[in-house]
């Protein structure tokens, strides 16, 4: 419809309808125009499809020297991968734009088609290869063992195993698999900064990570040193969706040109990453080292690990809830009956711990306290083990909620009960213990059991301080096996197995205890 026709028909309509307000006619016109514009822009986009920027997914958070925020200009991403991308864009004659995406979800994002490809230190592994398409490698990585500068017990992984030391690494990496294969106890981290931190704090004895990470994060640190030559090897490559064979061919050809004319080498040298191992890039298609990292995830291999995670979840839930209900009682009593300063202290406690996120609390307890111990010379006492920090953090947090439940339950007992007890010569404490508390328990128990079920699920948050409980175990296993659904259902079943009986118990207690009153 041409604008002229539109105008004619609205005029016509206005005359015939008589009462029709002109505003309605105007907005109808506007709507039609919008549709026309939208359709036109969509068509334009379709035509421009070939030259539109390719969408590249990467995680720039803590990602040096791969892709990271330029410290001098945080708006701007830098890194050896950024340089490679720029070279590739020039080579294929199409702009490439970066999209921030969580590292641990990159492969999933590729599968889902959220972007055109992912490139961020992704190792080629058989499990991943089953899900996505990999380009030819652009970097040969190796693993570097890093220890504290004053370490004198061992010099290599073998010595490390003999002294049964603990090695920190990133989960689901070649280093992780290497440690597992050699039977060396490993502690899994999410990020690359935390393992080296914990190494300095003495929480782990060594850190095994990809060489670029070690070069960037550990080598400049005078408290740490490399020990032994780099070991093992693997490939970083670009990941595409399975059906993007054409795009893969284009990128592979471009990479091939960058490798052959030395531009890739120049980039890697700029970043201090070129070494003899990179000579292999010229010939590699990425298939040759698959056997090295093979690790297939069958039920009998992941089920025991999940059960271990579940056991840890149970342990943390019980310990932290036990702690919570023990410290909550004096807080509730202080708030109800304490002298003014104590009462204010209790209110402060409740408001403080209810008001801050548990995640923050866990970080402060685990990393913050450890900092304090190095500064103030308090020794190792403040260097909490992850499980200690987890139990303490959840316990302190839940104590705030449980204190309020205690308080409500105790206040709900009629004041006359106190007087009746006093008139029988009972002391305040005796009256509380024998008369008030047993009655309060009836009101306290059902919401408390409810909180316990909630705590059970909240334990998943402690994975942030390197405790591998059930949820974390699920993340690790599903990521390395790519069996998100299968292992996910099993994990859910385990949670239900733990929380449903608790829910039933809660309802049962409610029935039993609810009966006694009046």
């Amino acid at each position: 419809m041409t604008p002229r026709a539109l105008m004619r028909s609205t005029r016509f309509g206005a005359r015939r309808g008589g009462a029709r307000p002109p505003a309605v006619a105007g907005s109808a016109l506007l709507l039609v125009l919008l549709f026309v514009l939208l359709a036109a822009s969509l068509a334009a986009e379709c035509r421009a499809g070939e030259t539109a920027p390719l969408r590249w997914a990467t995680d720039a958070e803590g990602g040096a020297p791969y892709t990271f925020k330029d410290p001098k200009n945080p708006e701007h991403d830098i890194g050896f991968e950024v340089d490679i991308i720029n070279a590739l864009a020039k080579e294929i004659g199409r702009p490439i734009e970066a999209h921030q995406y969580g590292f641990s979800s990159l492969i999933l994002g590729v599968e889902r088609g959220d972007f055109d490809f992912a490139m961020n230190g992704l190792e080629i592994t058989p499990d991943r290869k089953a899900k996505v398409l990999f380009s030819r490698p652009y970097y040969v990585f190796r693993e570097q063992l890093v220890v504290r500068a004053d370490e004198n017990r061992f010099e290599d992984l073998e010595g490390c195993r003999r002294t049964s030391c603990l090695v920190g690494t990133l989960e689901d990496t070649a280093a992780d698999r290497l440690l597992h294969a050699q039977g060396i106890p490993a502690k899994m981290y999410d990020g690359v900064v935390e393992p080296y931190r914990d190494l300095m704090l003495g929480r782990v004895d060594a850190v095994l990570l990809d060489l670029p990470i070690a070069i960037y994060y550990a080598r400049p640190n005078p408290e740490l040193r490399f020990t032994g030559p780099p070991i093992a090897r693997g490939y970083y490559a670009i990941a595409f969706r399975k059906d993007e064979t054409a795009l893969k061919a284009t990128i592979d050809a471009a990479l091939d040109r960058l490798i052959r004319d030395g531009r890739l080498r120049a980039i890697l040298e700029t970043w201090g990453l070129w070494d003899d191992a990179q000579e292999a890039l010229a010939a590699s298609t990425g298939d040759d080292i698959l056997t090295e990292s093979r690790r297939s995830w069958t039920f009998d291999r992941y089920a025991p690990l999940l059960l271990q995670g579940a056991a840890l979840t149970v342990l943390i839930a019980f310990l932290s809830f036990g702690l919570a209900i023990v410290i909550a009682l004096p807080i509730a009593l202080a708030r109800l009956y304490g002298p003014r300063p104590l009462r204010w202290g209790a209110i402060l406690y409740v408001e403080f711990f209810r008001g801050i996120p548990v995640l923050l609390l866990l970080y402060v307890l685990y990393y913050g306290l450890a900092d304090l111990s190095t500064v103030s010379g308090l020794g190792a006492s403040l260097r909490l083990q992850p499980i200690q920090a987890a139990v303490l953090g959840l316990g302190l947090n839940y104590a705030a909620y449980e204190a309020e439940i205690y308080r409500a339950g105790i206040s709900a007992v009629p004041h006359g009960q106190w007087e009746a007890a006093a008139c029988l010569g009972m002391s305040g404490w005796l009256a509380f213990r024998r008369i008030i508390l047993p009655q309060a328990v009836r009101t306290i128990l059902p919401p408390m059991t409810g909180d316990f079920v909630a705590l059970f699920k909240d334990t998943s948050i402690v994975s942030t301080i390197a405790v591998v409980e059930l949820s974390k175990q699920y993340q690790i296993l599903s990521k390395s096996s790519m069996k998100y659904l299968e292992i996910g259902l099993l994990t859910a079943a385990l949670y239900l197995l733990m929380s449903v009986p608790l829910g039933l118990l809660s309802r049962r207690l409610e029935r039993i205890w609810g009966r006694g009153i009046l």
Partner: protein
Amino acid sequence: MSAANETATAGVALSVTGLRKSFGGRTILDGVDLAVAPGQTVAVIGPSGGGKSTLLRCLNGLTDFDGGRVVVGPHALGPGLGKGPHRATARQIRRILGMIFQDFQLFPHLTAIENVIEAPLRVLGRPRDEARATAARLLDRVGLADRGDALPRQLSGGQKQRVAIARALAMSPRGLLCDEITSALDPELKGEVLAVLETLRRDGITLMVVTHEIGFARRAADRVVVLDRGTIIEDGPPADVLERPKTARTRQFLSQILL
């Protein structure tokens, strides 16, 4: 007054002098003087809000007061209950002066007999067997020998109040404060409670009974005290106070409740 039996040693002497208390700007007790001889039964009557309950609660230290003095046997109490010495004195007074409430205040999580033995066990440190035997005798005495294992919610109001009396007696008190203990009961249940009270009087225990039961006062009290607007306006034998009241206010009050 008969000789003391198993529950009561000799009754205790009570006295208050110049007792004053105000609350929220309202005067509740305005200089009350009262002396009760050991073993005496005193009925305290008067219009609502006259200060009857407050007087009882000051006697055993449940409520603080602003001025005056309370003496129970050898223990003397002044204003300022929150402070250490008076708090300890109040507890000593409660050991010899029991109290029964209008709304019973049985411990709902304990059976009748557990209600009765709790304080002897935990406060007096009696052996469990002995405490149970005494409790069984006391429940029998209040006519509830067969209800010892019932929970409070399974008992009628009159039965609850009788358990409360047995519970108070289990501490072998030398005096008992009864705060409108039949007011929450249906008329047909009042009799059973008042009958128990009359047997206590014969035991020689000192009784202070705040009540609206004029019949009970006439029949069972040695003395009737009329408390109105925080002062005692009449004090004497039941025959005098109830039949020949001296003040117009007492006459008015009596005519109202006897209607």
